[in-house]
C-alpha cells in the first residue's frame, strides 16, 4: 500500500476501472467530491480555523478546533496526577519504556539473555524514576502515577508477564501428564469465561477485603498480575492454534534424531509456532493496549481518565472533542506502529519459509 505513490500511480488502470461508463464516471466523481469535501471539513476544523495558543481561548468558536485546551492540559493528559514539578521524571520514564519496546523489536536483540537484560534495565529505569525514593528523589507512590506514563507501563508489564505465562500455559495444555493438562485447561477456561472488568475489579477491590493487610501488596501490582494472567490465557489459545498447525511427524523426527524435549521445542517447533500465531498475537497485543483503558473503573488515572479530567472543569468543558481527538491520536500512533511492525515481521518470516 505504501508503494502506491504518485510516481508509479497507474493512471490507465485508474481510468479503466473508474470511468468505464458514464454511470461509473458519475459515481466516481460524486464519491471523490464527497471525500474531498469531508477532508476539507476535517482540515478546516482541525487546522485552518483552529486556535492554537493557550491564551487564545477567548477566540475559540464553533467552526474550529480549540487546541488551547491541549496546550493548557497536555501535562495532565500525559502524566495524570503525577506531581507537577516532577514531570521530567515521568517523561524520562515514558521514554525508557518506549526505548525498551523499540529496541527489543530489532531482530539483533532476539536472544533470551539480551532480551532479559534489556527489559530488566528498561523496567528498573522506569520504576526507579517514577517511584524515586531509591534514587534519592521525592517518593511518588503508585497511586499518583497516571496518564500516558501509566498506560504504557500497564501495557508493557501486562504483555511482558503475559507472554511467557501464555507460552507456559500452552505447553502445559499440551502436556502428556493429565494433571498438568487438566490444570492448564481449567485455568484457561475459567479465566476466559470471566469478563476482564470483573477480573480487575476483583484484583483491585475484593482481594484487599479478603486478604490480611500485609499480604495485599500494592494495587497496581495486583491489577498487572490479574491482567497479565488474563492476557496469558488468550495468548495460550493463540499459541495452541500455532502448535496444531505443526505436523506430529516433526516431533517424532526430532526424537528420532535424539534431541531433547527442549531442543525440539526451541529449535524446531517454537519458531514455526510463533510464525503461525503471529497475526493473532499482534491482534491480542493491540486489543490489550486498548483494553488498558478499562482500569479507569478501578480508579486508575490512565490516559483516558486524565483526558476526562482534562475537560472536566468549567473552562475546558466545551472542548472535549479536541481532548478526545488528541488521545485518539496517541492511541493511533502506538497501535499503528504496532500493526506496521507486525507486517514487517510477517515479511521477514516469509523469507524463512522460502
Amino acid at each position, binding site marked *: 500500500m505504501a508503494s502506491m505513490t504518485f510516481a508509479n500511480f497507474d493512471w490507465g488502470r485508474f481510468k479503466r476501472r473508474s470511468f468505464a461508463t458514464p454511470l461509473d464516471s458519475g459515481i466516481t466523481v460524486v464519491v471523490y467530491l464527497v471525500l474531498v469535501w469531508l477532508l476539507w471539513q476535517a482540515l478546516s476544523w482541525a487546522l485552518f480555523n483552529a486556535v492554537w495558543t493557550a491564551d487564545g481561548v477567548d477566540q475559540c468558536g464553533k467552526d474550529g478546533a480549540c487546541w488551547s485546551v491541549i496546550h493548557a492540559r497536555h501535562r495532565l493528559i500525559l502524566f495524570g496526577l503525577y506531581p507537577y514539578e516532577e514531570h521530567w521524571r515521568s517523561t524520562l520514564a515514558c521514554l525508557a519504556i518506549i526505548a525498551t519496546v523499540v529496541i527489543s523489536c530489532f531482530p539483533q536483540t532476539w536472544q533470551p539473555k539480551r532480551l532479559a537484560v534489556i527489559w530488566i534495565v528498561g523496567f528498573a529505569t522506569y520504576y526507579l524514576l517514577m517511584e524515586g525514593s531509591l534514587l534519592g528523589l521525592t517518593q511518588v507512590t503508585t497511586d499518583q502515577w497516571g496518564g500516558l506514563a501509566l498506560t504504557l507501563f500497564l501495557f508493557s508489564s501486562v504483555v511482558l508477564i503475559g507472554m511467557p505465562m501464555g507460552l507456559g500455559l500452552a505447553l502445559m495444555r499440551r502436556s502428556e501428564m493429565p494433571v498438568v493438562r487438566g490444570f492448564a485447561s481449567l485455568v484457561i477456561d475459567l479465566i476466559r469465561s470471566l469478563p476482564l472488568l470483573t477480573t480487575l475489579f476483583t484484583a483491585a*477491590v475484593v482481594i*484487599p477485603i479478603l486478604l*490480611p*493487610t500485609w499480604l495485599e501488596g500494592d494495587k497496581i501490582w495486583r491489577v498487572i498480575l490479574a491482567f497479565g494472567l488474563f492476557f496469558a490465557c488468550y495468548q495460550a489459545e493463540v499459541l495452541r492454534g500455532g502448535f496444531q498447525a505443526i505436523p506430529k511427524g516433526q516431533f517424532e523426527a526430532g526424537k528420532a534424531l535424539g534431541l531433547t524435549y527442549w531442543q525440539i521445542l526451541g529449535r524446531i517447533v517454537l519458531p514455526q509456532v510463533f510464525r503461525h500465531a503471529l497475526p493473532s498475537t499482534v491482534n491480542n497485543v493491540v486489543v490489550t493496549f486498548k483494553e488498558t483503558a478499562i482500569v479507569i*473503573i478501578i*480508579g486508575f488515572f490512565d490516559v483516558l481518565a486524565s483526558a476526562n479530567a482534562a475537560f*472536566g472543569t468549567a473552562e475546558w468543558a466545551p472542548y472535549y472533542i479536541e481532548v478526545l481527538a488528541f488521545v485518539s491520536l496517541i492511541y493511533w500512533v502506538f497501535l499503528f506502529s504496532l500493526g506496521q511492525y507486525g507486517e514487517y515481521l510477517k515479511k521477514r518470516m516469509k523469507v524463512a519459509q522460502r
Partner: protein
Amino acid sequence: MINRTILASLAVATGLALPSAGFAESPTIKAIEERGTMLCSGHNGSYFGFVEVNDKNEWKGLDIDLCRAMTTAILGDPDKSQIVPLSWAQRFPALQSGDVDIIIKATGWTMGRDTELGLQFSIPYFFGGAQFMAHGDLGITEAKDLEGGTICVEAGTTIERIAANYLKSIDVEHTMVSYEKASELRAAYLANRCDSFVAWGPFLAVLRATELENPDSHVILNDQLSNEPISAAMRQGDEDFVDFTNWMLAALLIAEEEGITSQNVADMAANPPNPKIARLLGVEPGMGERLGLRDTWAREMIAEVGNYAEIYHRNLGEESPYKLERGLNNLWSHGGVLYAPQLD
C-alpha cells in the same frame, strides 16, 4: 479489613465497658494520625465543581476542600490529605477495604446505603435534587410534556430510580437510556440523541453554564423530583469518627453564621466577641478534648480553607465559573436548610 473490624469492635466493647470515658478515641482518627496522611475519595476523571483537577494536576472542588478541612483539623496541615481516585462503583468497596478513610464524593444518604452497605452518614453538607433539562426548541415546560420522549440518565445512580418512580407517578410513557459517564451523557444529549436529560440539579446548572454555545436554548424544568441530602459516608462501627465529621461540618457552618472567615479568624481568636466564638476557636477549652483533638482544630481549619460560604463560593458559587445560587444550601437564617447543631 479483618484487623480493622476487630479493632472497631474492641473499641465498641471497651466503650461499653467504660461508659464514662471522658473523651473520644476513634480508631480511624488514630490510624490517620499514625499514617500521617488522610485518605479521601477522588474521582476517575472529574465531577464539575465537586472534584476537579486544575492545570497544575492538583485536585480541587467542594468535596476536596472538605477533605482538606478535615485533614487540617486532624493533622494540622491540609496538604497531608491524599486523594485516591475512585469510580462511582468502586467507592463503597474501597471504603470497606480501607483504601480511603471517608467518602466525600457527592454521595446521597439513602436507607440502603445506611443499612445494607454498612455505612454511616454525617449530617448533610449539601442539598440537591434530581431535575430534568430539555432542549428549549421542543417546547417542554413541565415533566408531563415528556410523554413519549427519550430521557438520558447516568447509570447506577439514585437518580435513575427516582426519575422512573416520578414519571410513573405522573403517568408519563418514556424511554430511558442510561450512560456510564457524565461526559457521554452530556454528549448524547447535546447530539440530540435524547429529548431530555435527568440529573442532579446542580450538575445540570453547571452543565448549562459551561455549555458556551447557547445556554439559553436549554430549559431546566421546575419539577423537583427529589431533594437529596449529600453527606460524607464512613464505615460502620466508628461512632467517634462520625461525631468528629459532624462537628467539623458544624464548625464550618457556625463560622459562617458568626462571620468568621479565613481572613479574620486570627483577629477573632485574639479578641473573641462572644463566648461561643471563644469556644469554637479554642480560646476557651472544650472543642478539642471532647473529640480527642487539639482545642484549636477549628481555628486552624478555618484559617486554611475558610468557612462554609468561602468553600462554596470558591468552588460552585460567585467566585467559580458556575455561579450557582446558594438556594437550599444557604444557612437557615438566609432562607436555606443548612444549620449546625448547638455548640455548648
